[in-house]
């Protein structure tokens, strides 16, 4: 068994990586997008600049903003970081990992969303309310799909704790399981919805009728906005890593010598980059959907994940 010091170090390292790398991942995605759409990109570092800019700005609060409005950014950021500390990204020797299994992770994200929606309604503008309403609607549709995807994985891995899922997969030989494939595809769709990407939501629009996430945070400014932005970047990144941990966990270090850690970091970067490409391809391939077409999109996700479960029982 490894020494506690190492464990703490690994834990800290991972959290730092998560916090630091998340904007970069978003930057990477945006960059790819620009390339694909034949625009010149602002570079992978742009998100960092945005955050930095927002941090130095002053905060402008509406008169009737309550404490809900003010604590929400911290909660968003905090929950994201906490989740970041339990998903095995660079190593399976996370001593915090047992404190939250995959269901808890989803639930913690849900908490963040809950508060964000409340904050959206706090000011009492039509936009905030609209954003909150739509966000919760989308969430209620994604939840079953994501749960079924997780279900498939945890049936296969005989556990809902991420560590054991990762171990049982990465130790086992690379077998192509139809159930996992179905679940994987479903998971990608769900991640797109959860992270508010096209075709579910367009992060770069401020056209009121299509806004969802942006509508909720419309009233935010300064460091609050920075925290929320950063938090949602981390969230996006964590979903990706969660996908990695569940569906392609190969390469995540199970020992804690520096070499294997470094290797697993490297693998992680590669995987993340690839996933970024996939996301971008989907985004550019599809157009933003009307709100009530989303049911079909997420329905498809749910169908796939259910197929995953069924496939697990029938084929394996």
């Amino acid at each position, binding site marked *: 068994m490894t020494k506690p010091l190492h464990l703490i170090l690994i834990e800290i390292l991972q959290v730092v990586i998560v916090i630091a790398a998340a904007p970069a991942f978003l930057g990477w995605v945006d960059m790819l997008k620009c390339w694909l759409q034949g625009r010149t990109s602002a570079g992978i570092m742009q998100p960092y600049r945005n955050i930095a800019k927002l941090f130095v700005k*002053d*905060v402008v*609060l*509406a*008169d*009737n903003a*309550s404490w*809900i409005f003010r*604590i929400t950014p*911290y*909660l968003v950021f*905090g*929950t994201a*970081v*906490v989740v970041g*500390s339990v998903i095995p990204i660079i190593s399976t020797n996370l001593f*915090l990992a*047992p*404190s*939250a*299994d995959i269901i*808890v992770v989803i*639930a913690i994200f*849900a*908490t963040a*969303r*809950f508060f964000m*929606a*409340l904050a*959206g*309604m*706090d*000011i*009492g*503008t*039509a*936009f*905030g*309310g*609209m954003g*909150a*309403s739509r966000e*919760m*609607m989308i*969430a*209620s549709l994604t*939840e*079953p799909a994501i*749960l*079924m995807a997780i*279900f498939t994985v945890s*049936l296969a891995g005989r*556990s*809902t*704790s991420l560590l054991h899922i990762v171990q049982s997969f990465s130790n086992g030989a690379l077998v192509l399981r139809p159930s996992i494939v179905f679940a994987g595809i479903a998971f990608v769709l769900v991640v797109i919805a959860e992270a508010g990407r096209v075709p579910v939501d367009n992060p770069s629009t401020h056209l009121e009728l299509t806004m969802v996430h942006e509508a909720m945070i419309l*009233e935010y400014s300064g460091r609050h906005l920075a*925290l929320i932005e950063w938090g949602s970047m981390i969230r996006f990144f964590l979903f990706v890593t969660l996908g990695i941990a569940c569906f392609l966990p190969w390469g995540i270090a199970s020992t804690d010598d520096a070499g294997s850690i470094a290797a697993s970091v490297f693998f992680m970067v590669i995987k993340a980059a690839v996933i970024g490409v996939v996301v971008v391809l989907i985004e550019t391939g599809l157009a933003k959907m009307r709100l*009530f077409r989303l049911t079909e999109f997420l329905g498809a996700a749910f169908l796939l994940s*259910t197929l995953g*479960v069924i496939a697990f029982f029938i084929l394996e």
Partner: protein
Amino acid sequence: MITPIELSIFSAIAFAIPILFVIVIGNSRRLLICISFSVSALASLINVAAGIMAVSNGEAQHLILPLGLPALPFHLRLDELSGFFLVVVGLLSFFVSIYSIGYVSGLATGKPVKRLIVFYNIFIAAMFMVCLADDALFFLVAWEVMAAASYFLVMFEDEHSENRRAAYLYMVMAHIGAVLILLSFGVLAGVTTGFESFTGYTFDAMREANIPPKWAAVAFLLSFCGFAAKAGVIPFHVWLPEAHPVAPSNVSALMSGVMLKTAIYGIIRITFDIIRVFPWWWGTMVLVLGLISAVMGVLYALMQHDLKKLLAYHSVENIGIILIGIGLSMIFTSFRLPLMAALALLAGLYHTINHAMFKGLLFMGAGAVLHATHERNMDEMGGLIHQMPWTSAFFLVGCISISALPPFNGFVSEWLTFQAFLLSPSLPIPMMKLLIPLGAAVLALTGALAAACFVKVFGVIFLGNWRGHHHHAAVEAGWSMRIGMALASLTCLCLGVLPAIVLNWMDVISEKLANTKLISSSGVYGWMWLTPVDPERASYSGPLVLIGIVAVCTITYLLLHVKPGMISRVPVWDCGFQKLTSRMQYNAVSFSMPFRRIFGYLFDIKEQIRLSPQQRHTAFPVKSNYYLRIRDRFWGWIYRPVIDRVVLLSRKAGLLQHGRIHVYLIYSFLTIIVLLALL
């Protein structure tokens, strides 16, 4: 040394004291309220103690009161299960009694407060007796007294016709349910002793009897229908959204928080304790009904804009969730999978206590809001967080808990239920393997919808600006109300953060009913980690998650406030055009619009926009008003036809009393002829 059961009997008797006060110091209202509700709070607390003792020292105690029929005296029995429910009932009634001191004295003068006090105490005492009863007669007596008392409490403001209607509907359904339960006891006792003596009516006799499967099924179905009518399981739920809103809020807190739980108690008592051996389809039935109630309940709730009606529908949802746990447990039991049965059962029971706490809390909060605004329609509220900070904070806790979000208690029980679902693959029947996971998806949907619903509730009531037409100066609730809510919120947090301890304590129930301990098989991590079944499978540490989030938030806050940029307060940005009125906010109806669009086919929705005829000038927009009515389809499907049949039959019966004496003579003539012919 006084035994728990004696303790709880004495405390139950203590509930008579306030009733005496009503007679003695009836004239000074304020004093009466203070004393009597404090007494009932104390008595409830004693019951909690008794329950805790009973569960921890873990063997059943019997007591026989010299009441009832000489051959069939009242049998009482305090075992782990009843102890647990004593705790549930006692805890909430303790909080609510404290709350009531402020709430009741805030009621308008001229309301029959004495009636309220009398039946309030009878009600709580009856609930305790239901949990203690150990023979059919006493159980039913307590059960019906409970129903009657709550009926009078719902009738509290009998000058309003809606109260009368609701109370009537409730009482009739409760009574029919009780008769069904009575019949199921009849079956059990009948096959036990063949009715040559009264001994068959005790639960002990029923336990010993080996009931033939057919009769057992009959008994189960009868009792389940009876209890479902009380618990508000769909399709027996129609009384619930009528009765809970009109009752005084402290009463609706109790009814929704704990009275429904007595039905859960009954179901568990009958199936797990008395019948014990049952086929898998019973569990499946319970599970399916639970799933339907859960999702339908939350969907109906989403459509409501009457605060208390909405909460009532959420009770339907949560009862559904509890039944999911119990149903799973029954399925596992019938397939001899004790460990999983234990897990599912504990999940159900844990959600029972959780729901008691947060639903009680929410109803108390609703009461406080009603007190402040005299409004039940959410679309007439808004921005209350500024006037009533405390209430809003407590209410928020309730919202988070009921939305099953960590680190509060609602999440833990749903998490346990999910774990139980995850164990379904070890069932022998392939079909169930396939289908039960879908149940998990439904549960997930329920949780998400609940979250949406409570974003709506909290957002519309407490956030934004005042939406009401008539402006009303709301004031914060009084101290006793706040204490009551604070205690409930605290309990919610504790149950959410330290579930391992509570489950350890409850585990003896699963040992008795599912024949195995849960934690003992997985207690490796101690109180910090909740690891049902075994840590390999799943683990959750409430404390760590809570500490983590709090820590990160504080650190970030501190880091950001070493050199804080200034915060300037400005009016809301009105997108450029002037006069952003508070009527432009999203309200309950508009919030739930997407859900209406998606799930609309489940409801009987009548939605229309009327354009006012007179057009002042083409340049001005036409004045239009929006009309929305959402009805429960079940009423039209089941209840309306039944009522019509009954009325029709009664008209037919009226024809007998024809008024002509000749006809009457013919009746008696024909009766003789027929009887003689049959001879």
